[in-house]
C-alpha cells in the first residue's frame, strides 16, 4: 500500500480521498445500514402482530370491563363468551403498585446510604456486589424463593401481596443502582455549600440532595416498574391465577402476563385472541410508563 495513493482523477491529487477509501466507506455504511434494518425487522413484526391481532380484541365490547370468566357481558358474543381481562389488568396494576411501595423506599434508602455514608468503604462495596448479584438472578428464582418462604414455609396459599413481594425483590436492585447513579451525579459542591451553611447532614440530604436528584430517581423507579409489570415467572407460584376480580391482596390475584400465559395454554382461537389483546394492553401499559420516564428525565436538572 503506497502512502501516496493516486487520487481518482480528482482536482486535488494531494488531498483528494482515494478511490479505495471511498469504496470502503460506501461498503461499511452499507453493512451498518443492513445491520440496523435486520435488527428492526423482528421489532416491527412484533408491533405489527400485536396491533393486527390485538386491536380487534381490545376494541371488542367489554374487553376491559368483564372478567375472563365469560360470565359478564359482551366479549366474543354468542354461545361461547369467554370474557375480557378486567381482573388481569386491575391485578397487574395493584400488584405492581404494592411492589413499588415496598421496593422504592428501601431501594432509595440503600442508595442514599451508599452515596452519602458508605461511599467506598468495604461494607458499601460488599453491598454493591450483592446488589449486582441480585440484578443477575433470573426472575423465576425470586418466584421460587418466595414460594418456599411465604407459601410452603407458612403453609398458606397464593396471594397477591406475595406476588408484590416477589416483584419488589426484582425491582430492588434496579431502583438501588439507578438511584445510586443519579445521587452520585448531584454535584459535591452543592452538598459542600449546604454543609458550610451549617446544615446537619440529614437536612442536606432531604432539602438539597433528594430534591436535586428527584426527577432522575423517578425515571429509574418507572423503569423498574415497567420491568416488573411484564414479569410472568415471579407471579406464577406466588400470586396465582384467578378469573374473578379482587382488589384484596391477600387473595389470589390475576395479572396480565399470567392471563396471556393461561390463554396460550388453553389454546382455542378465542383464547389466542384474548391473549393478543392482553399482550397489546400490557405493551401499551409499559409504553406509557416508559414514556413518562422519558418525559420526566428530559426535565431533569442533572442532565
Amino acid at each position, binding site marked *: 500500500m503506497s502512502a501516496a495513493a493516486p487520487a481518482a482523477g480528482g482536482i486535488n491529487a494531494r488531498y483528494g480521498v482515494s478511490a479505495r477509501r471511498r469504496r470502503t466507506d460506501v461498503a461499511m455504511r452499507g453493512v451498518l445500514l443492513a445491520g440496523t434494518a435486520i435488527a428492526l425487522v423482528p421489532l416491527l413484526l412484533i408491533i405489527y402482530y400485536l396491533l393486527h391481532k390485538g386491536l380487534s380484541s381490545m376494541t371488542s365490547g367489554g374487553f376491559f370491563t368483564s372478567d375472563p370468566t365469560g360470565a359478564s357481558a359482551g366479549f366474543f358474543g354468542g354461545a361461547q363468551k369467554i370474557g375480557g381481562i378486567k381482573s388481569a389488568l386491575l391485578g397487574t396494576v395493584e400488584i405492581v403498585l404494592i411492589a413499588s411501595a415496598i421496593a422504592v423506599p428501601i431501594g432509595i434508602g440503600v442508595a442514599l446510604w451508599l452515596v452519602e455514608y458508605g461511599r467506598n468503604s468495604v461494607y458499601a462495596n460488599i453491598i454493591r456486589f450483592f446488589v449486582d448479584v441480585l440484578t443477575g438472578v433470573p426472575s423465576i428464582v425470586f418466584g421460587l424463593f418466595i414460594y418456599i418462604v411465604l407459601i410452603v414455609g407458612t403453609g398458606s396459599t397464593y396471594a397477591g401481596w406475595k406476588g408484590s413481594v416477589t416483584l419488589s425483590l426484582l425491582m430492588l436492585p434496579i431502583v438501588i443502582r439507578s438511584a445510586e447513579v443519579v445521587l452520585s451525579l448531584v454535584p459535591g459542591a*452543592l452538598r459542600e455549600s449546604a454543609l*458550610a451553611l451549617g446544615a446537619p447532614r440529614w437536612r442536606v440530604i432531604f432539602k438539597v440532595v433528594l430534591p*436535586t436528584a428527584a426527577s432522575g430517581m423517578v425515571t429509574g423507579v418507572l423503569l423498574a416498574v415497567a420491568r416488573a409489570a411484564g414479569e410472568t415467572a415471579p407471579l406464577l407460584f406466588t400470586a396465582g391465577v384467578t378469573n374473578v376480580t379482587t382488589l384484596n391482596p391477600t387473595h389470589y390475584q390475576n395479572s396480565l402476563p399470567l392471563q396471556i400465559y393461561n390463554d396460550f395454554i388453553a389454546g382455542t382461537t378465542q383464547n389466542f385472541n384474548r391473549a393478543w389483546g392482553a399482550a397489546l394492553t400490557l405493551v401499551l401499559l409499559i409504553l406509557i410508563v416508559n414514556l413518562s420516564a422519558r418525559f420526566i428525565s428530559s426535565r431533569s436538572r442533572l442532565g
Partner: protein
Amino acid sequence: MTADRTTPSSVDVSPDDTADGTERTRAAQPVPSAGPAPAPAPVSSSAGHALRLEQLRAFYGDAEQVKGIDLDFNAGEVTAIIGPSGCGKSTMVRCINRMHEEIPGAHAEGRVLLDGENLYGPTVDLVAVRRAIGMVFQKPNPFPTMSIFDNVAAGLKLSGARGGGLREKVEGALRGASLWEEVKDRLSEPGIGLSGGQQQRLCIARSLAVEPEVLLMDEPCSALDPIATLKIEELIEELKQRVTIVIVTHNMQQAARVADRTAFMLTGDLVEVGQTSDIFTNPRDSRTEEYVTGKFG
C-alpha cells in the same frame, strides 16, 4: 466579644440537630491538652471577631498538605491568602470551618480559635462552627431546585434557624450582597437563571443570611469576568465592617486591591504574613519577593 457569643457546644440547636452533630463529632480530632494552656487570643479592639490558627496541620490520608501554620486574622479586616497552585491555601481555609474533614480520608490537627474558643475542641458541634463561619466557593453554586428567595432562605432553613422575619432577613442578606436591586422583582425565579457574577453574589447572600462572624472566600472570582469580579471586590470592602474576611486568591492584583493583610504560602508552609503593601513592595522573605514579582508560580 466572648461574652455575647454562645459557645459552639451550647448553641440552641433542636434536639435532632444535636444528635446529628454529636454523632459527627467523632470525626473531630481531639486536641492534645498537653502543652501550655492556651492564652485567650488577643481580640482586636475594633468590633468584630478575631480568628487565630495555632499549629494547624491538614492531611489527606497520610500526606501532610498544611504543615503547621500559625496565623492571626484580625477582626474587621480582609486577609488574603496567596500562593502557587497546590500550596495548601484552599485546604488551610477549609480547615477553618472544618469542611476539610468532609473529604473521605482527610483530617486536620491543631487549633483554630474564634474569639479565643477552640473550634477543634472535643465537644464542638460542627453545625455551630459552620454557622459562625460562612464560606463562599470558587464556582457559584446556588441550589438548582430553589428560587432566588429560597436560595437565600436556605441558609436559614438548612441551619435550622427558626423564627419570623424570614422575608426581612432575606432582603437584608440580598442587600448586603449588593444584589437586591437586581433581583427584587424576580425573587421567585430559579437561582441558576442568574448570571455567573449574580450567582456568586447570591451565594454570598446565602452565607450572609446566617449572620456569620467570619466569611471564608475560596477564590470567589476565579470563575467570573472582570466586571463581576469588580462588584465582588467592592462588596468585600463593604462587608469587612461586619465580618472578618479570609480570601484565598490566585490573583495577586486582587489581593493587593482588597486585602488589608496578605499571607503567602508555599508547599504547605506559611512563608510570610504582613500588611499587604509590605508583602508586595517590601517582602522580608526572598521567596515572597520572587512570587510577587512573577519569577515563579
